[in-house]
């Protein structure tokens, strides 16, 4: 996949990078640096004023079906149960059959929600709601996942747990992930490469390779290699950090 968005004056400009299949990319930077804009450009939700952008070898011209997106808020439909929310993307494309339901049950179980298939979102905690959203993302079967600060609104403990689960899922299905965050530590911990962005206008300050081995555990954060990378990213952000 190659992504070369060159935005207008307002959002982002002079940004050029490509993402390999199965790679985990973090986009980190302060608010207003255009990291969410880039995700929306890749998803085809907004148009670019100039430049070129390709996903899976084809130019991005509108909303795409070969990728799936997750947001900071879970955005679950309050009139649907957890399992109905998970199967929403399938229902939009066609019919929800027994195979889909089985898959949805499997995903909810995998994310520790086997007791909550029929719970309505109002009866789930913030962390559980975001797990349902994660299952809804995964049921699409797409291997390109765009995640816009998906854990930013969660408490520290839930956030850490979901971060580890995301890594486990990513390695299992060999997904390509573009993960937007404003946490440098989270960015480095998750990614193979970190795209560091600075605001006004949104620019790519640099790309940091993260050659740390996988599977990654929380202990990794204590290593000097990890901290060097964190400070390297921080340094690139300069006065914006």
């Amino acid at each position, binding site marked *: 996949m190659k992504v070369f968005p060159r935005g207008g004056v307002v959002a982002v400009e002079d940004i050029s990078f490509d993402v390999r299949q199965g790679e985990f990319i973090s986009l980190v930077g302060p608010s207003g640096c255009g990291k969410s804009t880039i995700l*929306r450009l890749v*998803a*085809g*939700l907004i148009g670019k004023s100039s430049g070129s952008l390709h996903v899976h070898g084809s130019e991005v011209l509108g*909303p795409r*079906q070969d990728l*799936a*997106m997750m*947001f900071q*808020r879970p*955005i679950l*439909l*309050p*009139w649907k*149960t957890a399992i109905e929310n998970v199967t*929403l*993307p399938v*229902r*939009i*494309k066609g019919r929800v059959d027994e195979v889909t339901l089985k898959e949805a049950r499997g995903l909810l*179980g*995998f994310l*520790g*929600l086997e*007791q*909550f*298939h*029929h*719970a*309505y979102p*109002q*009866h*789930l*905690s913030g*962390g*559980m709601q975001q797990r349902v959203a994660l299952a809804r993302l995964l049921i*699409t079967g797409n291997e390109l996942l765009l995640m816009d600060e998906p854990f930013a609104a969660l408490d520290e403990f*839930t956030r850490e*747990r979901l971060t*580890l*689960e995301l890594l*486990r899922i990513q390695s299992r299905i060999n997904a390509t992930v573009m993960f937007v965050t404003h946490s440098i530590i989270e960015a480095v911990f998750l990614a193979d490469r970190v795209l560091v962005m600075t605001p006004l206008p949104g620019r790519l300050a640099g790309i940091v390779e993260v050659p740390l081995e996988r599977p990654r555990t929380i202990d990794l954060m204590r290593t000097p290699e990890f901290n060097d990378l964190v400070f390297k990213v921080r340094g690139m952000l300069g006065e914006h950090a």
Partner: protein
Amino acid sequence: MRSEGVASEAGSPRDVEPADPVGAITKRVTAAIPSFIVAVIVIGGWEAAARAELVNRLIVPAPTKIFSAFVELFSSGLVWEHLRATVFATTAGFALGSGAAFIIGVLCSFWRPFRKVVEPYMITLQVTPRVALAPLFVTWLGFGLSPKIVMAATICFFPVFVNTLTGLLTTDEEALEMLRSMGATKRQTFTQFTLPSALPIIFAGLKTAMTLALIGALVAEFVGTSQGLGLLIDRFTFRLAMEESFAVLLTLALLGLFLYGLMEWLDRRVVYWTHEERLSRREMRSRLRSGRERR
């Protein structure tokens, strides 16, 4: 990872399952006691005042007298044709007015130029006291049902229109973006998301509209009709038959309560996700159903 204390996270469905039904009924009865006591004091005081002739019987009759007039009204069968006429005018007017309001509201939400054209007329119609239209409707449409239906429809149009439009236009932008990223068509976005999101506020409008429809029908009946509770009350007061007038008033209050209760009942079933007890019940039911299916 699987066994990490999920159950310890807040909001376990077990917390929200309704308590035993007998306990729930007891609770509701207990909650109703204060207003019941107030009713006893007010009605008792009123009765005493009327019997002691502290108030003129011709102005305010005693509650017991009103009650027997009420019983008489129904047992003689006099009330039925009038009740039927008013109920029909109210419900038909409600259906017509709120139906039209819903459709126009939906069109306005979809098509901005249409909204720009329609909105000023809607507002003008709203700020004009539509009660003043009643004599016109009767002049145009006669003493039958139609002026009442039209009056009821006109008066209940606005709350449904405004609430439909507001509900459909104030949807979550990020959710719309999510649906777009899933490749939802316009129609799917409307049926799967925009309309259900707007339903709670649309129902709030419908509840107001139902009570307004009754007012509309009555106003038209006061102006001139051959049948209806409005006519009945007019006739009784003209003859200074106050007990009967109050009996009709009581009938109207009960009718209003019934119609409002009907809307509440519908609201709890259609917009179940804003009513905790309905939500828990549905949750339990679907869990039972899937348990059976998988066995």
